[in-house]
């Protein structure tokens, strides 16, 4: 099967500094990918380029065989949806209005069709946000906002979901819920999910594949046990780490577990 995304010699520079330099990378429909790496590793830049929001890149980033910067915006928005890390609003839009904005690539007239309202209803039910649908978005807590923004992305009914740290502000229950939602989407609807995250354990638990970025380069890539090797974690994050295999076959990463090696890091 042909990958949805094909990246090759993809680069990005800000003020002369190279922030991204990816040799080769591809993502397929139905995959669940975690992008991890320390602050400034280029995670957000990579997602921004894939989302079509940064057109000043070098090299190539193709979606369905077509260069992302050459995609017309509306059809691209029906296929790819991007969930920013935070959303700050200046004006009083309700949670429901924010979610409804996800339907924009499908709406032509001034008003929404019944199927738009149905899509919003479904997305808000999935993300557990119906109870505050009429509230001002600005009055919601960080975690509630994050779920509303995710609902907006789901209402977009995309084939690709790009998320920039989707679980940062969430409580444990909703962190797990969000990861279950994302995994459902990738398993049943063949949605490609690419999420940048700082939580290595959740990345290990939920992803099919992990991409480890460091100073703009891919330093490890593959299934969780392959990508998250202790030597990779120590080199990239500068902390000692131990990777343990649990009874159910999952990985558990402990930091600072090996004091002798932690001292030099």
């Amino acid at each position, binding site marked *: 099967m042909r990958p949805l995304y094909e990246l090759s010699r993809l680069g990005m520079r800000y003020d002369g500094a190279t922030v991204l330099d990816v040799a080769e990378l591809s993502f397929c429909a139905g995959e669940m990918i975690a992008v991890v790496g320390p602050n400034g590793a280029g995670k957000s830049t990579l997602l921004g380029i894939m989302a079509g929001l940064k057109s000043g890149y070098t090299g190539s980033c193709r979606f369905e065989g077509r260069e992302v910067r050459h995609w017309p915006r509306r059809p691209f928005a029906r296929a790819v949806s991007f969930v920013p890390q935070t959303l700050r609003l*200046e*004006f009083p*839009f309700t949670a429901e*209005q924010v979610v409804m*904005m996800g339907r924009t690539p499908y709406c032509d007239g001034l008003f929404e069709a019944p199927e738009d309202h149905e899509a919003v209803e479904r997305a808000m039910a999935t993300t557990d946000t119906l109870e505050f649908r009429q509230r001002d978005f600005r009055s919601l807590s960080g975690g509630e906002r994050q779920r509303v923004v995710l609902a907006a992305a789901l209402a977009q009914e995309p084939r690709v979901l790009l998320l920039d740290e989707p679980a940062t502000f969430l409580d444990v229950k909703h962190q797990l819920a969000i990861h279950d939602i994302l995994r459902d989407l990738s398993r049943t609807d063949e949605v490609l999910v690419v999420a940048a995250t700082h939580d290595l354990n959740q990345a290990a638990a939920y992803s099919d594949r992990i991409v480890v970025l460091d100073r703009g380069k891919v330093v490890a890539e593959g299934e969780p046990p392959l990508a998250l090797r202790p030597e990779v974690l120590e080199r990239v994050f500068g902390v000692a780490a131990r990777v343990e295999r649990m009874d159910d076959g999952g990985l558990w990463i402990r930091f600072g577990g090996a004091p002798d090696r932690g001292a030099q890091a």
Partner: protein
Amino acid sequence: MRLLESRRAALAAAAVLVVAVAAGAPLIGPAAIDFGKVWAGLSPDAEIFYYARLPRVLLALVAGGALAVTGVLFQALVRDALADPYVLGVAGGASLGAVLAISFGWHGAAGVSGVWLAASAGAAAALLLVLAIATQGGRMSSFTLLLAGITINSICAAAILFLHNIVEFAQSFVVLRWLMGGTQPVEYSTVGWLALVVAAVLAVMMRRARDWNLLAVGEEWAAARGVAVERLMITGFIAGSLLTGAVTAITGPIGFVGLIVPHALRIRWGADHRFLIPAAFLTGAAFLAICDSVARTVMAPAEIPVGVITAMLGGPFFIALLRSRRRSLWL
């Protein structure tokens, strides 16, 4: 749904208010007139109503509506509730353009008044300048935006004073009268032209009202959802300059209508531009026409420029708004 109905009711109420003001405001003034006599076409009540007062009220309605809509546009474009044509220095640029045209007796091109053209060009130039100053690395801070607006306003005011001093006496008088602002009696054709421009701009904006919602959230937010952001923003800048220029050319600088009206509407009915644009037009229209009636009557037979009234109301309002969000300004 309840909110939707309340928005419809609000729009209907605002429309009724505008009609009531249009019919009622011309009856108010230094000379008392009687609506029954006006209706019957009796002199002099009918003449006062139709030739002295009605055009002026209509001008106030159209100008107020246009200013309020311009506020809505600018606020969405820079994502800042403090923006309005006056605060951003755009009205200053329009004034300078208009005064230049008056001072050098430029009569215009292709049948369009030189003052209009110059005011619109001045508005556009000031807007570009303010945005260029306030933007840094693709970001804009409301703090620099406000400072830039104040600066542009002062520079334009200085240039206007300079022009006023070097021109001939006759022009100097025209400039001064124009600068006082206000809605001195105009001809129906002038009001008609202005209404045409405003209606065209409103129609263009309304067609994209949904996209304006997304732009008011953020440029990336809108772009990631398929909105042609660049085109929308350019349309908005042109529309805003055109409205500010056209209104300022006729009425002189009138401040704060674009600040007060959209903000008050948003507090109660939210920020959906499909409601906000028409509601701001109607409410702004009624607001300026009422202010103008006050300006014309409180010190009768003397008149206060209507800009004085709006500034007296708008200044404190602006300060309250500024204080309520001081935290977000400084952090």
